């Protein structure tokens, strides 16, 4: 359908929705029509939720986690181990690690990984802020995704953190618990074999 056929208010919404990650023009149009056909209150609730999200949620000024206050709950929590910082790509990873209940240290959200192909350099991430936090820290745990870019970013961080004489570790790679060797892909299995542990 040619673009001009949509009334401008509809076209505007399609364009805005189309900016969202993973949403193409077709999906955006479908969503826009859904909203158009939905109940007035339902549509307003969606709009309000977006407004409230931007009003209330901000990024923690220390670790860049999402927070309803200037400093997030984890950074304010004096019970937590302030000698450990776990570096992650995004708040989503933080929530997953928190769910394990295994980690009592602090976090630092980088806000992405280095990727010149996407125009993201070290200066676009919260790396200087990480360096600023390093002086009283004993261990930095790198927990970035095991993608090409995640790996390169880990290497980059380990290089620039080296002068600070802090212990740098990263998550182990291995076989998912509860799975069967038969169903593990060759790649994961070979990494697990390489980083095997002595019993």
């Amino acid at each position, binding site marked *: 359908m040619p673009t001009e056929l949509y009334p401008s208010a509809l076209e505007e919404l399609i364009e805005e929705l189309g900016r969202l990650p993973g949403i193409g023009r077709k999906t955006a149009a479908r969503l826009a029509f859904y909203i158009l056909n939905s109940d007035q209150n339902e549509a307003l609730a969606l709009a309000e939720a977006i407004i409230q999200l931007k009003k209330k949620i901000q990024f923690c000024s220390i670790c860049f986690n999402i927070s309803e206050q200037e400093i997030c709950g984890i950074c304010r929590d004096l019970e937590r181990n302030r000698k450990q910082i776990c570096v992650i790509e995004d708040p989503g990873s933080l929530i997953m690690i928190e769910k394990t209940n295994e980690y009592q240290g602090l976090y630092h959200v980088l806000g992405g990984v280095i990727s010149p*192909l996407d125009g993201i350099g070290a200066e676009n991430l919260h790396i200087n802020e990480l360096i600023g936090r390093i002086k009283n820290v004993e261990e930095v745990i790198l927990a970035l995704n095991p993608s090409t870019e995640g790996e390169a970013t880990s290497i*980059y961080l380990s290089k620039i953190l080296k002068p600070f004489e802090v212990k740098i570790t990263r998550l182990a790679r291995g076989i998912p618990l509860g799975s069967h060797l038969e169903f593990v*892909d*060759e790649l994961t299995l*070979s990494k697990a074999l390489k980083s095997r542990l002595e019993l």
Partner: protein
Amino acid sequence: MVLKKLKLVNFRNYVDEEIVFNHGINILFGQNGQGKTNILESLYYLGLTKSFRTNNDQNLILNNAPFFRIEGEFSTDVKRKVVVSLALSLSEGKRLKVNQQKILKFSDYIGTVPLVLLAPSDLDISQGGPHRRRQFLDIMLSQSSRLYLHHLLQYRRSLKQRNLLLQAEGMSDPPALEAWEEALIQHGIVLIEKREEAVRQIDEMVKTYYGRLSGKTDKVKIVYQSSLNINGPDSRPEGYRQAMTRNREKDRQLQTTRVGPHRDDMLFLINGKPLRWMGSQGEHKTFIIALRMAEYQYLQTVRESLPLLLFDDIFGELDGSRIGNMIESLSRIGQVFITTTSPDFFGKVENWQGETSFYEIVNGKVSARELV
């Protein structure tokens, strides 16, 4: 792997064609321009999700059609049925299904239908620049090991990232470059080691096939030539790292990475002399056939599965005795697809007893033929 049935819809000059193939040798004959090679191309595409004739997949769609689809019904060596369907549509891109299950990562699929193609343009492998020789190794190894393909893709991506940094002035501070260099080293070393190991193995095979095909005692040899010049596996990461550091300034000027497996080569020798410069046309042809046969044997050994063997119009260029020797080698292998303008070349081989089926191809239509 045995291909039982092939279905082509809107692929090249095939509108809607279903062909039943047999074990043994399948001969596709017909005049030029009728669509013989298109069938091999569709098989190649099914196995490697790429064409060997074009980089633009849209060229494969029949004129004015919105999509093409290739579907192959295979029987594995343990007689299990596998149906692979690959479709490309202008609106939705490429879609791959194996037994009705959608495959999202093509790299997980490569090697499911292993195959080896021998085509006239293969002469570039021995006569042309290093690109085709690396491509030969990469395709063979990607079909034989998912791990290799993973490292290859990661290496290529890291290379792009580093080259981009080299081009972006001011952005290329040493730690940023070093991060990508470490990635290149990590993946690059695996590529080099796997390639060297494979070259050692196919070197032996090529020797045997070359002797059998030519009937002569010429000595052929294949040597892997790394652009890194590092001796011994222990010094490899360190030597690689030093080479990267040493080259950094020059790389920055030229805005590209000048050493690593993406610049490596294979040297083909005949009686100690480089084939590329010294070989006769006949020697090149025999060598390439021996190389493809070695690829076949290598894949068969590592995958424990019989690859499909595709021969695109090569018999016209060979003399009778070579064809005879080749057919003899062929009789020991699985399913073969051969395109040719004259179906009678088997007449040149007196004692041929393998199972052979004939298909005549006329303007995008395939008919099975009984030839005596």
